[in-house]
């Protein structure tokens, strides 16, 4: 597909340690800057990466204790899109079974958490989630 050639690719293997999401966000920032993405859009990418990594780091229970984050710069002659894939080999979940959180429900509930996917969907242009017994993969992209 036009504009979807992979011009550059970087993969991180993050150990399940506190604040590893920040390392991924730094890489996201550096790559998005190299594409000349606007600062506000870079910030949105950074936040989405943080959320996707936290979900994997906190909930995947992956036996290999790692989260893999791949950044792909897509385009033909010029960078057009940044695609980020966050993958774990954990227990998986069923995205369709997750009710979308609302502030009204969370204010009444003991459990205030569970916002990650809603934030990611709100900040990125395209988001796909694949999850099963072999782990979870979140693919998200944003145009430059």
């Amino acid at each position, binding site marked *: 597909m036009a504009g979807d050639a992979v011009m550059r690719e970087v993969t991180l293997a993050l150990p399940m340690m506190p604040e590893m999401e*920040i390392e991924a966000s730094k890489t996201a920032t550096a790559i998005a800057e190299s594409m000349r993405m606007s600062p506000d859009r870079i910030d949105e990418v950074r936040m989405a990466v943080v959320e996707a990594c936290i979900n994997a780091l906190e909930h995947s229970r992956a036996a290999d204790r790692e989260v893999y984050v791949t950044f792909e710069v897509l385009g033909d002659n010029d960078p057009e899109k940044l695609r980020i894939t966050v993958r774990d080999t954990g227990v998986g979940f069923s995205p369709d079974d997750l009710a979308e959180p609302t*502030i009204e429900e969370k*204010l009444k509930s003991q459990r205030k958490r569970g916002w990650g996917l809603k934030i990611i969907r709100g900040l990125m242009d395209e988001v796909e989630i694949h999850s099963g017994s072999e782990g979870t993969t979140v693919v998200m992209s944003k145009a430059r």
Partner: protein
Amino acid sequence: MTESLNVTVDRRDGLAVIYTEGYINNQGGEEIARVAYKLIDEGFRVLLLNLGGTKIVNSIGISILIEIIEKMIEIAGKLGFCCLTPTIEKTFHIMGLAQYAPIFKDEESAVAQLQT
């Protein structure tokens, strides 16, 4: 590596401003909550969270801010936010926080509005 959060407070007549600097994650959120609940115990019913020194937050940290909003509703107090980055402001709107805790562009307008 640790991205710690520094929290400072300016107590004023009838209002306290909480300033944050750094990453608002679970530890950061808990520190803000600790400071906010102390101010409530001291009698403050109007709190302003100035996030001008925070460039990144995560949803776990924001979830703790929702607990503070819940507490302010419970005591019929007011909580506002100011000086947010465009992405943090957008995130708060995605989550619906702005319906219960107004977002202001700057501290001056926040203080003026919250004290009315």
